[in-house]
């Protein structure tokens, strides 16, 4: 066994003395630090905007609440008081709230789709489908290039680091003429290769763990609260690197020259990280097309505007008998009730369209996850995004929460609108409030991790078998 350790020690010394290791680690370290910085800048910008919209909401609602308490015996107060106690005015134009998709603590590590989708949304009593499908301002060129975040470093760059450190781990012995010397020692080839791969894996993983831990103070992650998520994140990174260790082990087991190994390993990287995902993307847009031209109806306010009030209201009351108050009249003021009936009619028209769209997107996602076995990079990125709450699925869940909130918001105001009741100052404390529920804590990584590990096992098995021959 001492020989074994001697070989490893010698290997380590050689690695350490080579200029390559320091240079490569330096580059990846800089990339990693930049990735943290970038992720942090990106998220803190979104947080600043979130703070701004929350401030906007607080100012508006506080001043409305103050107006609702005004003394109406003073003539000048009357209009303000009238606005603040009018259920429609607060429900729609004045008191709308912001539904915010709060970034999770891990969001800076894997920004995912947070640049593609809006992360705050003003929600009022209008038809909900006229409010959704907003977009945030973003530079299309930046969107197309994607993020330089930690997930990118792990998925794209770390495998390259590992490949550069390992492609010649056995062939160099042949090329330096030390191969026969090595083989004359009482250790098997399997042990040697496995130990050398393990040494390099350990090196890269120490680096990975070190940098991930560095993220804790840099990004201000609260370990007590999000430590579990961070551990899961680290587990996925480790499994992904193990997979690449397996690829290297399998390729090296063929005992080809260094240049050949380098070509084949880079070829593997190219196919798994670059070619297959992009190809699948192309095929997917062709085989499961999504037509967004039908969405124009979401934008244009044309439905049911020309139907008389009674035609719109009749089916509405049939659906909501509890809102039917035949004795309430809205004499002298603009009757707002048909407005709500029209909104609901509009939502009912658009709901199937949106549902169809969401089903189509979910079907695309299902196709992609069917390919996870073959696409470790995509698998890993989806796990990262899931843990960081930045996936498209997380966004769809956010949209669902907005719809639920819209229902609660209107359920509070509509009885008052239809009864033609004024809001009281006490009502202001009862307003439904937005509470975002992140999908990240409940995100399961088991099956994704299993797929990664099974691929790893297969590759190590292949290498093990080859090295015996």
């Amino acid at each position: 066994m001492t020989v074994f350790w001697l070989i490893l020690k010698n290997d380590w010394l050689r690695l350490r003395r080579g200029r390559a290791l320091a240079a490569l680690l330096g580059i990846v370290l800089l990339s990693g630090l930049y990735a943290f910085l970038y992720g942090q800048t990106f998220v803190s910008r979104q947080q600043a905007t979130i703070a701004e919209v929350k401030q906007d909401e607080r100012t508006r609602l506080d001043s409305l609440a103050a107006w609702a308490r005004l003394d109406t015996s003073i003539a000048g107060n009357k209009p303000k008081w009238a606005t603040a106690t009018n259920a429609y005015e607060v429900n729609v134009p004045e008191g709308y709230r912001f539904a915010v998709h709060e970034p999770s603590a891990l969001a800076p590590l894997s920004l995912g789709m947070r640049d593609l989708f809006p992360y705050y949304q003003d929600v009022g009593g209008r038809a909900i489908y006229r409010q959704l499908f907003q977009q945030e301002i973003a530079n299309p060129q930046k969107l197309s290039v994607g993020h330089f975040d930690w997930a990118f470093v792990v998925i794209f760059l770390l495998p390259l680091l590992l490949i550069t450190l390992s492609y010649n781990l056995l062939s160099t012995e042949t090329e330096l003429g030390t191969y026969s010397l090595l083989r004359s020692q009482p250790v098997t080839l399997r042990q040697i290769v496995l130990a050398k791969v393990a040494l390099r894996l350990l090196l890269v993983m120490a680096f990975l763990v070190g940098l991930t831990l560095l993220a804790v103070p840099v990004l201000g992650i609260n370990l007590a609260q999000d430590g579990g998520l961070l551990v899961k994140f680290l587990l996925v990174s480790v499994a992904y690197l193990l997979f690449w260790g397996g690829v290297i082990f399998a390729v090296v087991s063929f005992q080809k020259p260094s240049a050949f190994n380098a070509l084949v390993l880079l070829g593997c990287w190219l196919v798994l990280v670059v070619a297959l995902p992009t190809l699948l993307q192309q095929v997917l847009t062709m085989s499961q097309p999504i037509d967004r031209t039908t969405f124009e109806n979401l934008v244009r306010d044309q439905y049911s505007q020309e139907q008389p009030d009674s035609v719109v209201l009749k089916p509405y009351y049939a659906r909501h008998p509890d809102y039917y108050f035949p004795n309430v009249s809205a004499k002298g003021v603009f009757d707002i009730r048909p407005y709500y009936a029209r909104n609901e009619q509009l939502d009912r028209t658009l709901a199937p369209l949106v549902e169809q769209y969401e089903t189509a997107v979910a079907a695309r996602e299902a196709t992609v996850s069917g390919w996870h076995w073959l696409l470790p990079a995509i698998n890993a990125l989806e796990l990262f995004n899931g843990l960081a709450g930045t996936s498209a699925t997380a966004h769809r869940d956010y949209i669902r929460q907005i719809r639920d909130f819209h229902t609660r918001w209107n359920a509070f105001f509509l009885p008052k609108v239809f009864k033609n009741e004024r809001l009281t100052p006490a009502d202001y404390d009862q307003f439904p409030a937005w509470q975002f529920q992140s999908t990240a804590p409940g995100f399961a990584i088991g099956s994704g991790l299993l797929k990664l590990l099974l691929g790893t096992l297969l590759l190590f098995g292949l290498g093990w078998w080859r090295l015996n021959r």
Partner: protein
Amino acid sequence: MIRQLIARNEFTQTRRDRRFVVAAGVVLLLLVVATWTGFRNYRSLADKREQANQSARAAWLGQTEKNPHSAAHYGTFAFRPKSDLSFLDFGLDTYTGASVYLEGHRQNDAKFSAAEDATVLIRFGEMTVAFVLQLLIPLLTIFLCFSTFTRERVENTLKLLVSQGASTPDLYWGKVWGYSQVVGLMVGPALLLAGGLLFAQTGFDATADTGLRLVLFVLLYALYFFLFVAGSVFVSARSSSSRNSLLTLLGVWIVACIILPKATANLGESLFSVPSSYAFRKQINEDQEKGIDGHNPSSARAKELEKKILAQYGVDSVSKLPVNFDGIVMQEGEKYTSMVYQKHFGALQDQFERQNSLADIVGFLNPYLAVRDLSMGLSGSDYAHFLDFKAKAEQYRFGLVERLNNHMKTFSKTGDWEKTVSRDFWAQTPDFQYQLPPVGWALRRHALSGLALMLFGSMLVWGVRRGLKTVSIA
């Protein structure tokens, strides 16, 4: 003469190399698949948008009788047509909005980009022809050339060649010429297919502009590949071993094609910030309310307008005006809001261009960035073409709303919102027809990248000539 012999030798040897034939076969297959899928996607998008434009027009023509201003609120849509060459390079088309809602009072941003309904895959890019040409062919070129000098040095065949009277530049340029032919052989068939598809879909009646764009597209990539071949052969000549040569070249590829594009875009975004859509809308509303300079509130503007119009018609009250004052107010309001929107959208676009300019500048050192930029520009899928579409759609919107407001002004009296125009009035409004700007316009937009590429090419040739003087043959 000797150069041609060397070139022919490299060409023949490469063709006989089984590993290379396999790799080249895979890349050619990818290229053909990318051409085909790109074309299918392009056709389906182009058809859908064409149909959508027609149905938007039909909806406009078929709308009920209403007063002209209500029609402005009803509005219409402009769907962005796909440019002919966009199937070769999707550029930013996936990330820019596909349609604009054109209505009164407001300039909407283009909405519904394809990226929004993509899965996580979109983060890895799209396998388009441009993707293969920009990323994979250079990599294959590296595989092809990295050992061309180092191997011959080990095998001692270089000495043999020198004894035949070949100089170092002969050897170098001969090899470059040989490998360039190999790359041409690899890319040629796919580009022929692309050209065939392109012209077949237009019934072999493509415009001269499209033809010219395609020719320039091919020339651009020919230059790009030449740079990679020349650079790779040069690195091989200067390297002590095949391994060093390969590592150097792969390092260059990873930095130039993977790391730098992301880093420049990300850094650009961090350096030049843009407002959130919340702040953007707020600023626009404030400018409309308080005036673009902050000292000209809308109420004051309205009063001033009333005074001016009353004086113009020589009457003392709005009700005595022979025209519909509301029409005038709305048209003046439209002019003002347009100005406000133009100011803010303009500032935003400038900021985006500043962010992108970082990549243009780095393009002087990294030909990948320059080629990416020019390729998108020639394909009509870059940001500039998108802005051109948006500007023309806005022009059309303003013209349409102006026409409706002016009609309102003359055909009814002030305060009359009930009077409607007959349906045939809708047919008198012009249809929106988008024309792609000519190739010269596109080239001017990307002059910097063109310059960067030329400069890089000249520097490379100059550097090679200098460097070859000190290359030891044996």
